């Protein structure tokens, strides 16, 4: 699975301050760390970046690629900032990824950038109004995005479909719809469509100790469903290697030696699959 390192986000205080001061140190340190932890792409999330977005994105792309031989995921709603970033992106390390187009007409022109700069584009399966209710609705939107990509001349190989992971604490039943959507997306084309998620949103709003647990289980379930890439914490995902087998064994109904771990896995799978109602203390029940 391709990990898109999520840590360079304007939401994080340290990153935001470094962006504002154009202080390369923290940005390059975090980028390097994520590369070492196994990221294949580095996400550069500069937020809406309404003022000075173009300059900021260019600075981010060059700052990161100065020290890390990886492509960048250009993560902003500012079209001009994306294009500015693509102009300076070093394609020697692979195709840039743009986050994102969707079924919202305002986001269609992103596809033009995909063609013009031969980069990859994330197609978020949401429309202008409201969130998709289930996997089928996501697949319907995916088909529309694919059709539009072909109209614009973007090869489907350059498109990653994103079913939009939502918070389990508030929209629990969407977790299994997302997993189902990842499976469905692969069926709408031959060869199968690539898929991507913003993984950590699953545990947004949950108590801190729960977050890695939910993230890792969701990761294994999505991986099992055939997911291609995840915007995630590379360190956390590297730890999955130790737990993957245990989670898969419990999923298959097997007993594992560590009973406490087994209960944790069972309860977490039950919550993600909607078999028990989520509560912050679900592991204590």
């Amino acid at each position: 699975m391709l990990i898109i390192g999520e840590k360079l986000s304007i939401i994080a205080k340290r990153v935001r301050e470094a962006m504002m001061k154009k202080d390369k140190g923290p940005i390059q340190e975090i980028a390097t760390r994520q590369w070492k932890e196994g990221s294949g792409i580095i996400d550069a999330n500069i937020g809406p970046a309404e003022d000075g977005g173009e300059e900021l994105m260019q600075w981010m792309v060059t700052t990161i690629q100065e020290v890390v031989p990886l492509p960048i995921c250009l993560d902003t709603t500012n079209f001009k900032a994306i294009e500015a970033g693509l102009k300076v992106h070093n394609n020697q390390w692979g195709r840039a990824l743009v986050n994102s187009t969707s079924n919202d007409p305002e986001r269609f022109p992103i596809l033009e950038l995909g063609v013009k700069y031969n980069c990859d584009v994330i197609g978020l399966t949401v429309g202008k109004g409201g969130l998709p209710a289930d996997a089928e609705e996501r697949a319907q939107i995916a088909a529309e995005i694919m059709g539009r990509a072909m109209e614009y001349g973007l090869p489907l190989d350059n498109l990653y479909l994103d079913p939009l992971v939502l918070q389990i604490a508030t929209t629990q039943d969407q977790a299994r719809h997302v997993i189902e959507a990842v499976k469905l997306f692969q069926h709408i084309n031959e060869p199968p469509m690539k898929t991507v998620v913003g993984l950590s949103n699953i545990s947004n709003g949950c108590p801190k100790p729960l977050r890695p647990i939910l993230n890792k289980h969701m990761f294994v379930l999505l991986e099992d469903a055939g997911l291609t890439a995840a915007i995630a914490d590379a360190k956390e995902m590297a730890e999955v290697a130790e737990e993957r087998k245990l989670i898969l064994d419990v999923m298959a109904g097997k007993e594992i030696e560590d009973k406490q771990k087994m209960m944790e896995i069972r309860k977490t799978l039950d919550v993600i699959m909607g078999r028990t109602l989520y509560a912050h203390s679900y592991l204590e029940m």
Partner: protein
Amino acid sequence: MAFTAPKETYTGKVYAVTIGTGDKAVTFGGENVLPFHSFEGVTPNRPVIAVEIQDVPPADWADTVKKPYEAVSGDPVTWAKFCQDELKARAIALRLIGTHPDRENRSPADAVKTVKDVLAAVQVPLIILGSNHAEKDTAVLVAVAEAAKDKNCIIGKAQEANYKTIAAAAMANNHKLIAMSELDINLSKQLNILITQMGFDKEKVITDPMCSALGYGIEYTYSVMERIRLAALTQNDVTMQQPLLGDVGMYVWKIKEASASEEDLPQWGALEERSIAWEAETAAALMIAGAELLIMRHPRAIKEVDNLIDELV
């Protein structure tokens, strides 16, 4: 071939909760099916409607609902006796609204006196409610829980901000407890877990997912109640098997439809009929969603819902 109605089987059941003492004690909950699905399982107890009174005269109530209590509502004891003796209430909900700091700001000692007087005057079970001011409720409800010791009342409402003290007081004095969260099923479950983690018996909790009146977000309350019931019955979730409360009167009688006059809005029809129907409709909907305990105000609305229960059980 004869038609056979498809039947659902459920793995869980709702706890039966008994409140009050002696002959007048009442029990609600206990079913192992969705509301009124008696053809699928057992529904041993009918929903209970508690008639709402308060510790201070209902100056803020809409005229239509003030009227039937005109002669008695000046004093909570007379009011409570009227509900028990004339309206044949099976339970009474005493809301200590006068303790709210923005209202009369009555003291915990004042509240204790009211509760003791009412308890001495009536035999039907009492639900004792604070003023929904998280901080003041802590002091008031602890004092009244002690004053009502062993009377098997319901004390409420415990919320995320104050549940520890209120639950401890209810536990120490052998009362049931209302756990209220704000229209969020996951937080409702979480509060039930936290309360039971204190050692409070999970079968003594009543869940209040927060009410809303018809036209004012009732679909949210309905949906949360329905999902709580489904978790209780189909997933056998022991943290969601408490009876549900619909605190209907308070929410219905403050909306515009319950007080706007016919002169101002002739197209809305007669005020009295309209407002009473509004309370009855709201209560009926929430009962269908899963509420086993309703707190209501207008005697005619109560009668209508009672008749509906007769037809459904």
